[in-house]
């Protein structure tokens, strides 16, 4: 590529490194960005887990004094924020990044530099949020930040919340525009909607949810910032404002957010169960449309978070009903996963164990969720540990189990190495037991009256509550042990040779058509898709009884389809060294430069500094202009 000739047009010479550690700062490759998302999210997972363990230690005894009330408030708030915004969402983004182009048969996302921008904004947003620990204290009003409480607390703690989440939201918004465009517009020839892998379906739905949920939380956060920093009275009841406005805006975002967290895991599990059952996904259309139905109904259930807020009987009845409705598409999915396994040739590999664990644990979390839709029942449970148990069963038992299943499943694709199955199974069982020990008892402690969001509980709740809490604390340590096993598995595997076969699981979808790990251009020739589960179809034919029969060994794409493997992209596929003609976007500094301005502008708002605002603004302005003037790929220049 003509990288050398065109660099003079930039202020800085265009970066060219594709390898080495510097390449990571300028990369626009969706695979590298996906890996960076995953590693960053894992580091935040360790931090968020540490916060959880401190919280659990404080709660292991009535009236314990491991933490002060203020420390507890900061830790449980940051635990929630970290796990939601810095672990599960970016892990979802990691899978979107790595898999969407590979599964739809594309070479990259629609906007590679915007993709890099999304990652850097996420990283800097996370660092910004955590810098609050060194600047007077972290957010301490809960991840829900109920105003007017959150606007009347002293200190800058909640200002870091409102500005930090704003930055993180920008990352998600940019990513959602990028992924929606990629999925709608970059599918390989022949990949119709009903031939897309289920993970792509779920990704599309999640990114539409992000697209429409992020602006709502952005508005709520702007209002919170204006109240906290500039003295408006959006949430100030003393000035006549409505104290429920924040709750409405937050949960209009917050409930779709729940599906933003869980649907990527549902997509992952929908890929893994068919592979290890050796059957196509049962009821493909039902699973896809159930996902879409969740995406729609998810906008009409938010007030079930506010049943105790005094909305009146009509609103409570309506939102109770819509909450029951949304259990239907979720139930459809669970039945489809079970019937996918039913009668299949099951292989209990580590990814399969995590996927089955997902289905089982998510079902428990889903059922306790349905109990919340019964308004009188919810009035009893609200603000107790029963609710904490519920959402950990869906977010840990659901989202994290699914993401872990995907990690084991796609590890060979990403690294060219297989994680140890033996250690993986040890990891699974310790993790599974630890999870249930931690969160199972919270159901009972909550029903016995233990309130959430308080740093101490009194001995008057009874010895049973104390015992349940001790078990939960012990369980948290068991989870920590399982994470150590996983970390050891990763270290051990990464020290070993790159010896994963190209198709280790006998998989079904297009990403396994590439080498492990894929070349930076993914596909030498853009595949032409003729079937759902295209890769499986290329490997197996069906006999008269519908059983899979391997096609001729060594049968190439061309022979299977009886047509040339036309490149919808290159036009002139040169079989020997086709990648010589593939135009890939060049690395770029500008997404990173532009992102540098954001946290500076964030500090400017919190400290009301015009100097910082000018510096941050100029950096963003400069980065943005350099970005739009620079062509996507150097040889695109006219």
């Amino acid at each position, binding site marked *: 590529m003509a990288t050398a000739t065109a660099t003079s047009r930039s202020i800085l010479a265009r970066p060219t490194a594709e390898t080495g550690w510097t390449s990571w700062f300028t990369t626009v490759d969706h695979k590298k960005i996906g890996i960076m998302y995953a590693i960053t999210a894992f580091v935040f997972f360790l931090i968020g887990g540490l916060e959880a363990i401190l919280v659990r230690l404080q709660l292991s005894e009535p009236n314990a004094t491991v933490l002060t009330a203020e420390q507890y408030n900061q830790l449980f708030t940051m635990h929630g924020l970290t796990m939601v915004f810095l672990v599960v969402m970016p892990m979802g983004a990691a899978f979107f990044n790595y898999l969407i182009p590979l599964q739809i048969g594309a070479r990259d996302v629609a906007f590679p530099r915007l993709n890099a921008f999304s990652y850097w904004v996420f990283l800097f947003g996370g660092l910004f949020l955590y810098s609050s620990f060194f600047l007077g204290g972290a957010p301490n009003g809960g991840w829900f930040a109920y105003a007017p409480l959150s606007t009347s607390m002293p200190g800058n703690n909640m200002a870091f919340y409102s500005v930090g989440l704003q930055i993180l939201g920008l990352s998600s918004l940019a990513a959602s525009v990028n992924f929606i*465009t990629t999925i709608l517009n970059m599918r390989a020839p022949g990949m119709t909607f009903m031939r897309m892998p289920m993970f792509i379906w779920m990704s599309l739905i999640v990114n539409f949810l992000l697209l429409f949920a992020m602006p709502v939380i952005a508005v709520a956060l702007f209002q919170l910032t204006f109240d906290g920093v500039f*003295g408006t009275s959006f949430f100030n009841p003393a000035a006549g*404002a409505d104290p429920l406005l924040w709750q409405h805006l937050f949960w209009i975002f917050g409930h779709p957010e729940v599906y933003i967290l869980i649907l990527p895991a549902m997509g992952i599990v929908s890929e893994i169960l068919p592979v290890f059952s050796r059957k196509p996904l049962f009821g493909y259309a039902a699973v896809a449309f159930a996902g879409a139905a969740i995406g729609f109904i998810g906008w009409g259930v938010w007030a079930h978070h506010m049943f105790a807020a005094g909305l009146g009987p009509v609103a409570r009845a309506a939102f109770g009903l819509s909450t029951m409705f949304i259990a239907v598409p979720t139930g459809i999915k669970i039945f489809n996963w079970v019937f996918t396994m039913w009668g299949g040739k099951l292989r209990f590999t580590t990814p399969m164990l995590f996927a089955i664990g997902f289905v089982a644990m998510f079902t428990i979390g889903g059922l306790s969720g349905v109990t919340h839709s019964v308004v009188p029942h919810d009035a009893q449970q609200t603000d107790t540990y029963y609710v904490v148990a519920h959402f950990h069963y869906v977010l840990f038992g659901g989202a994290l189990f699914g993401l872990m299943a995907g990690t084991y499943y796609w590890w060979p694709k990403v690294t060219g190495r297989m994680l140890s199955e033996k250690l993986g199974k040890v990891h699974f069982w310790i993790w599974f037991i630890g999870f249930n020990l931690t969160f199972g008892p919270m159901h009972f402690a909550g029903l016995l009256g233990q309130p959430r969001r308080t740093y101490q509980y009194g001995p008057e709740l009874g010895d049973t509550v104390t015992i349940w809490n001790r078990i939960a604390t012990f369980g948290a340590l068991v989870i920590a042990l399982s994470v150590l096993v996983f970390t050891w598995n990763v270290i051990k595997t990464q020290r070993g040779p790159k010896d994963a076969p190209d198709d280790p699981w006998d998989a079904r979808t297009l990403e396994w058509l590439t080498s492990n790990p894929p070349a930076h251009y993914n596909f030498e020739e853009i595949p032409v898709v003729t079937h759902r589960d295209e890769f499986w179809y290329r490997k197996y034919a069906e006999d008269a009884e519908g059983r899979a029969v391997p096609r001729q060994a060594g049968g190439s794409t061309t022979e299977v389809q009886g047509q040339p493997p036309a490149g919808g992209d290159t036009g002139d596929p040169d079989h020997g060294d086709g990648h010589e003609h593939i135009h890939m976007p060049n690395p770029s500094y500008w997404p990173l430069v532009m992102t540098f301005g954001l946290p500076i502008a964030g500090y400017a708002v919190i400290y009301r500094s015009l100097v910082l605002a000018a510096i941050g603004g100029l950096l963003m302005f400069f980065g943005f202009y350099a970005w739009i003037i620079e062509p996507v790929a150097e040889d695109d220049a006219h």
Partner: protein
Amino acid sequence: MQAAHETTLGIDHRKLAIWVFLGSEFLFFGAFISTFLLYVDNTPEGLGVELFDIPFTSISSFVLLMSSLTMVLAHSAHVRRDMRRARLWILATALQGAVFIGGQAFEFTTFVREGMGLTTSPFSGAFFVLTGFHGAHVTIGIIMLLSLWKLIGIGRVTPMEDVKTEIVGLYWHFVDIIWIIIFTVVYQIPAG
């Protein structure tokens, strides 16, 4: 460029992306407008919709709406590769946007002089933040238009790249459409 490649839907990536992004923007303004409607009568200081000068705002609204016409003319000229006219209309659009922003600045200072500041009441906060964010959107649009004007002038945006004028235009039309909603729901209905 990407436009030369075939896309699944046959639409340029950038054009599809701006449509998708504008979908998000509707929710952004929707939430601010909802907040305003919640607080439209919430004026403990007594300074509310009666401060609005409907004839004045009608004129600046008219100028903003007419800028959509010049935006269309700019895009049409770009499609015809008539870059001289395209630049002229782009500049005219930016100027009309600037007139609108000037009107908003005048309106804001008038309100503040009459005693309604940002922190006066839930009503005033909701009003200033909503219309302020709209003004910020118009300002960003003006910067985009002036950038486009300059980039065409130095040849960085070529006559073949009419999609660039089109996506700036889509953004500009969105900002206008939102203003129609704001002018109706925030100004006219409560004041009338």
